[in-house]
Structure formats: structure tokens, C-alpha cells
């Protein structure tokens, strides 16, 4: 099972163990070679003695692969589990996460059950599988296209659920609007124009100095998040770091835990929307984006406009860092 990026398709390889037999004829083998865990049970009956098999052993292996693909774990860790399955007929449970629709879950379940049938003749033929998989893949592709459309409409409606690409531009806006917020809320302590400029310059230089010395880690960011959980930029920095370590799940679980802990906090929801959109799980992005819409808009605005932590600057792809140095 190899993937060629040039052609963009998957290919079968390694014919070291293959044999030429038709579906009618039955092969007989005395020795078993190959990878443990992907053998059909008819291979494994009486160790040492002659066993017979036909081309349905490939269907069994494909069933194992489908299982491993959707679950993320091997169907059978060793031949022992295959024999156990043969006698008690209890298929390892298929628990699929929410990325699969109910229809897909059903399809996977039925396909795996049929492909991993103990009786070789009850397994579907490869032609059956091609037919079934092609209808499934066409359907899911259509669904995906539909999701993308919905997501684009959604984005057009709710621009504030910010995308990673527009983070840099939003950051500048946020910087400006945070000053405006200060202006309006603290009317009693209005500062003069020059005072404010000096203050800003000091703030920025502090931020730059800090950003140059602090080496951001996930633990550090999580501690910062603990302190100010309403700061969207901290969440965004955290998932940027996670993405750098290719730990997509880690970023998602962190956001989810935070959402469970404090359902009214818009910052992790926004970041979760971003994450799902970045990984092209558009239906999930829309789902979380809509929950965001139900929250208090002032709170959402404040999550974007809170003063930025120096840690954030050093992390968010140095974009804001460059911006700040340019301003200086």
C-alpha cells in the first residue's frame, strides 16, 4: 500500500508472497510466511498441517486495513486474537469519532463485519468492494463539497471567527481597538496624545524585549492561558505550537477541555473553529462557529481585543513580531 505523490494515488506493492490462483481453485500451503495480524483465519487452523485458502484471504486483509484505518489501531494485534475471534466471533468494537456521519459509521460497521467473516465464501468479492467503496467515496465527496459551501457562506456571514491567514491583519486591528476600548471605558483618566504614544512605545519595547528572551513552550503557554483564559491570542499561539509539533489532537483536546470547563468562554471556541477549518473538517468548524454566534458579542469582541501577552508575539509565526518591529 504505497502512495505516489506524483500520480496522487495509492498502489499495491510487495508481491513476495503472492501466488497465482483463480477464485475457483484452492491453494494449499504447508508453511505460513508473512505478517502476523493480517492473516485470514483459514490460514491459521492447524499449525503445521495443510491449510486451504482462496483469494478471499486478500479481502480479509483489506477488512483489517479498513478497521485499522478508521479506528487507528490494529484489528488483531497478533494471530492469537484472530483465533480467539474465530471461536468466539466477537469483533473488536468499532468506535468511530464524530468525524464520521451516522451513515458512514453504519457503512464502516457493515463493511468490516462482512469482510472479516470467518467463512471465506461469505466475504464480498473485490468487485463488490469496488462498487460499494466507489459509491461511498462519491457520496462523501459530495458531502464534503456541500460542507465547504456551507463553510464559505458561514465565513462570509461571520467574519469575526478569524482564520489563521487573517490573524496578522486582525492583530493590528485588535491593537488599535484595544486602545479605543480603553479610551471609552476609562473616560475619567484620559491621557493626552503624546502621553499615550510614549506609553505605547514603552509597552511595545517591553514586549519585544520579552519576546526575544522567552522561549515559548506549550507548558508556558498553558500556564499563561490559566492566568488569562479569555485571551484568544494565547489559545491561537498554543495551537500554533501544537501544529508545529504535529499534535493536532492535543490542540483540539486542550480547547475542548476549556470549553467544557467554562462554556461561556469564546476564546477556545474560536480557536477550535480555526483548527477544524484548517484541517478541512468544515462541518465541525461550522458547528462550533454557530455556538460562538450564540454567545455575547461583546465578550467575543473582548476575547479578540484583550491586550496581547508577550508570549503570543513570539509564537504566532513571528508575524506580529515583525509587524511590531516595523512600527518601532
Amino acid at each position, binding site marked *: 500500500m504505497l502512495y505516489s505523490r506524483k500520480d496522487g494515488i495509492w498502489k499495491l506493492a510487495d508481491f513476495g508472497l503472492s501466488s497465482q490462483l483463480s477464485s475457483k481453485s484452492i*491453494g494449499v500451503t504447508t508453511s505460513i510466511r508473512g505478517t502476523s495480524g493480517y492473516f485470514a483465519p483459514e490460514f491459521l487452523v492447524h499449525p503445521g498441517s495443510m491449510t486451504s485458502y482462496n483469494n478471499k484471504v486478500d479481502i480479509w486483509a483489506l477488512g483489517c486495513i479498513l478497521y485499522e484505518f478508521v479506528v487507528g489501531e490494529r484489528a488483531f494485534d497478533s494471530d492469537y486474537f484472530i483465533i480467539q475471534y474465530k471461536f468466539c466471533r466477537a469483533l473488536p468494537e468499532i468506535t468511530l469519532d464524530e468525524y464520521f456521519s451516522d451513515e458512514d459509521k453504519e457503512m464502516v460497521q457493515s463493511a468490516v463485519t462482512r469482510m472479516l467473516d470467518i467463512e471465506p465464501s461469505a466475504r464480498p468479492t473485490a468487485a463488490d468492494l469496488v462498487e460499494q467503496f466507489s459509491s461511498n467515496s462519491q457520496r462523501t465527496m459530495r458531502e464534503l463539497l456541500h460542507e465547504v459551501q456551507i463553510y464559505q457562506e458561514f465565513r462570509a456571514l461571520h467574519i469575526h471567527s478569524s482564520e489563521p491567514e487573517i490573524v496578522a491583519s486582525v492583530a493590528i486591528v485588535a491593537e488599535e481597538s484595544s486602545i479605543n476600548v480603553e479610551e471609552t471605558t476609562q473616560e475619567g483618566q484620559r491621557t493626552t496624545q503624546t502621553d499615550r504614544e510614549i506609553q505605547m512605545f514603552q509597552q511595545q519595547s517591553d514586549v519585544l524585549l520579552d519576546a526575544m528572551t522567552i522561549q515559548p513552550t506549550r507548558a508556558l503557554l498553558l500556564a499563561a492561558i490559566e492566568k488569562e483564559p479569555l485571551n484568544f491570542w494565547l489559545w491561537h499561539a498554543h495551537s500554533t505550537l501544537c501544529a508545529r509539533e*504535529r499534535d493536532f489532537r492535543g490542540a483540539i483536546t486542550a480547547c475542548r477541555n476549556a470549553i467544557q470547563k467554562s462554556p461561556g468562554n469564546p476564546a477556545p471556541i474560536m480557536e477550535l473553529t480555526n483548527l477544524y477549518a484548517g484541517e478541512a473538517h468544515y462541518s465541525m468548524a461550522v458547528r462550533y462557529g454557530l455556538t460562538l454566534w450564540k454567545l455575547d458579542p461583546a465578550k467575543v469582541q473582548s476575547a479578540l481585543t484583550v491586550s496581547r501577552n508577550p508570549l503570543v508575539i513570539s509564537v504566532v509565526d513571528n508575524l506580529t513580531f515583525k509587524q511590531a518591529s516595523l512600527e518601532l
Partner: protein
Amino acid sequence: MMECDKHLYTTGGDPTVLHRRLLGAGGYGEVHEAQDSIIYANRQMYDIPLCKVPTTFRPAFIRQSFARKLIRIPRVEAKVIDNEIRVLTELSREGIHPHIVAVLRIGELPNSQDLFIDMELCDLNLAEYIYGSKPRDLVPTFFIKDQSPPMKASQVWTVMLQLAKGVEYLHRKAIIHRDLKPANGNCCIGLN
């Protein structure tokens, strides 16, 4: 196996080919990413007498990398090799199927009994795709599962469709693969 350069070394006693790096090894021998060397890029005088099996497929892309599987003869039974070569010739006789790895040539190395099978080079195998390009045996399963990006249903069905097409073709040709698995540790280049 003598290493001439960090990235470029010759092995296997075949002067016409440069081995760029080791892709995998197993009981049969090993698989290298290889390239025809410039001097021998025109392999006409060299290739024909070596070929054990008439290959229908000539290397059209000279100087492009390919995967060379070296089969060390004393380690592998002759019966098994004959079998693999018979299946591969059977498959290449019909032309190239999109879901079967194309074999470029099969031959014998000059000064030994060892055989080589040159195949098209692929980028990654399914196990790397599922588990995020980390070898499964090195990391416990529960760890990998958290690391790997979640699969989308459309991804799963598309890949499975292609695999099923490959298997369907094999079965139509009356060939049983018998060793289907995500990590056919044959030739693969990681994403990084």
C-alpha cells in the same frame, strides 16, 4: 557496502546504479532509493544480457530515482523468488495498472547471485499515512492514536476504493497477494 558520500554511495556491485539511501530492509534483503549513474545512463549494452526476464517496460525516465529491491539469494528460497518474478512479469505484460506499483526491470547483479527488482519510487506507505509517519513498533499504540490527525470519511473511502481496485485487478488476473497490510515496508519516503 561502502559509503562514498553522505548521500551518494554505490552498493551491490552494480556500477550502473548509485544508491542514494536505504528505504527499508527485511528478510529478503533491502530496498534502496537508487539512480542510474550518468556514465551508464545509456544502459543498452549492460542491461540486456543481465535481464533474466524480458521486461516489457524500459526505463523511460533515466536519471530519475527509483526503488531498487535487492534480494540476497542465500537468504531467500529460489521457489519464493521465482514466484515473485513470475507474478511481476505476469502483471507487467499487461501494461501498467494505476493501482499496482510499476516494475521497471528485473535482473541479476554482475558479480553475485543476488537479484534486483527496480520499481517506481513512492512517497509513503499507508501505515505512515494512518499513524503520522512514525513507525508503529517504536511508539505504543495509544500514543500514536492521539497524535494522528483524525481521518475523514471521504479520505477513508477514497483510499479504500483505490486499494480495492488494485485487489480486484489482481484477482481478475488470478493472483492472490496474500500479504496485504498497511506497512508493506517496501519503498517509501517519509513526508519530511
